[in-house]
């Protein structure tokens, strides 16, 4: 027997679509100077955020963003049934220490840069399943902590290839609720891990594009919708070239979304900001979704949005051992409330 709320192979629909009650975003200086700078709630100019290490700064950003989201929802932390969060650091320390400080029942998640969308999908399931009234979700990343974990020390002189992306410094928090005003989550399509043999740790877009295309196609097949149902199909952090790759794969399979396709990684920086192919990191899709996208939905510019969090499942250890870099992508349908 097929599960009650399952449609097709990978999609779930929500009987009482959970509401996105409130959001909050904090970003670094570079993101604040970008084209979406005005959509963020707080811009920090000190990359250490008055802390002793970059890791502590990243954790503090996440905690503040999540607390700000709870305040904006008019709730207190006692009202939150579950906190779902994750980040890019080993053992998801930013999320763990935030959960320690917030003292809310916590489910730690790792979905690489797709973490916010993974949290949205799971949070919506918890609420529609009747297990929670309010779920607090969040994700964060920091350029300096990601660079030193995955690549080189920040001050080392290296020439980055043109297809490399820039890890977004920032954090976002979101409160999902069973009822209330705001945009709603109507469907979620959970992606499979897709590996088409990419091995270049500098080319994350190419590693993630097949997963993004796969999830988008399954979403259309499962729901029976056509591409013109959506005003906007937006991926997390494919970057300029990854976006092009995903678009090509989709066209080859008969899904032309060119007219409504965007990518958070492409939106967040201007070309002259020297970020090459665009933004990446958990915070990339998180701050653009919780900032710009939801603001546009609330203004009525978009009514039906398909958001796809994209993650490259890379570890410095596995790539040195010659393993491929697989990708994952989770899609969530956000509709104006």
């Amino acid at each position, binding site marked *: 027997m097929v599960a009650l709320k399952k449609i097709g192979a990978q999609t779930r629909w929500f009987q009482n679509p959970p509401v996105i009650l409130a959001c909050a975003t904090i970003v670094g200086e570079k993101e604040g100077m970008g084209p979406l700078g005005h959509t963020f709630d707080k811009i920090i100019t000190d990359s250490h955020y008055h802390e002793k290490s970059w890791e502590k700064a990243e954790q503090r950003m996440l905690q503040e963003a999540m607390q700000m989201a709870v305040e904006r929802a008019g709730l207190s932390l006692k009202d939150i049934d579950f906190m779902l969060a994750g980040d890019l650091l080993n053992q998801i320390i930013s999320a763990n220490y935030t959960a320690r400080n917030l003292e809310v029942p916590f489910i730690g998640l790792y979905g690489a840069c797709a973490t916010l969308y993974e949290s949205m999908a799971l949070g919506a399931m918890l609420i529609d399943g009747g297990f929670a009234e309010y779920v607090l979700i969040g994700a964060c990343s920091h350029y300096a902590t990601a660079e030193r974990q995955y690549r080189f020390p*920040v*001050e080392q*002189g290296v020439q980055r290839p043109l297809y490399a992306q820039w890890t977004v410094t920032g954090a976002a928090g979101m409160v999902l609720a069973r009822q209330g005003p705001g945009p709603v989550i109507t469907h979620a399509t959970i992606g499979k891990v897709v590996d088409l043999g990419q091995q270049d740790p500098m080319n994350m877009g190419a590693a993630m594009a097949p997963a993004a295309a796969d999830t988008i196609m399954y979403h259309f097949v499962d729901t029976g919708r056509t591409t013109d149902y959506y005003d906007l199909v937006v991926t997390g952090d494919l970057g300029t070239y990854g976006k092009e790759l995903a678009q090509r794969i989709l066209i080859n399979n008969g899904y032309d979304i060119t007219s409504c396709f965007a990518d958070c990684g492409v939106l967040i920086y201007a070309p002259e900001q020297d970020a090459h192919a665009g933004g990446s990191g958990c915070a990339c899709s998180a701050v653009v979704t919780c900032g710009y996208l939801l603001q546009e939905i609330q203004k009525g510019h978009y009514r039906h949005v398909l958001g796809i969090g994209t993650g490259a499942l890379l570890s410095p250890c596995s790539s040195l051992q010659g393993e491929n870099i697989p990708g994952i992508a989770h899609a969530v349908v956000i509709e104006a409330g």
Partner: protein
Amino acid sequence: MTQPLEIRKKQYKKLVDEIKPRPPLVRNTVGAFIFGGLIALIGQFLLNFFQGQGLSVNDAGAATSSTLVFLAALFTGLGIYDEIAKYGGAGTIVPINGFANSMVSPAMEYRTEGFVLGVGARLFTIAGPVLVFGILSAWLVALLYHFFR
């Protein structure tokens, strides 16, 4: 979507190579030439200066290297070196000051993990392999020289 995975992998690799931007070889080469040349020029000035101060050729060479290493370390500390290397590329990475940069940058970064297990353990993360294989190949060449001269 229905094709076997191996074929999809091959087709995808072709597509990736088609879309991937090529590195700006001419710009990178010119950048490396100019910045590498500038560093060499500064080195020559220093060498002449030290010799003018009465140092022997060998001593002046050592003093020149030390000064270049010091400057690279200073510029790394000030956060300028990576900005220069962005344009200079190989011209700033290959000379001795690139080596200094590759030691100072992890030293700065791992200070947060303490002096012994942070700075001490991580100081040679990038320079280490260069030293290991440099010393190993010198040793092998010396061995060959010893037996076959």
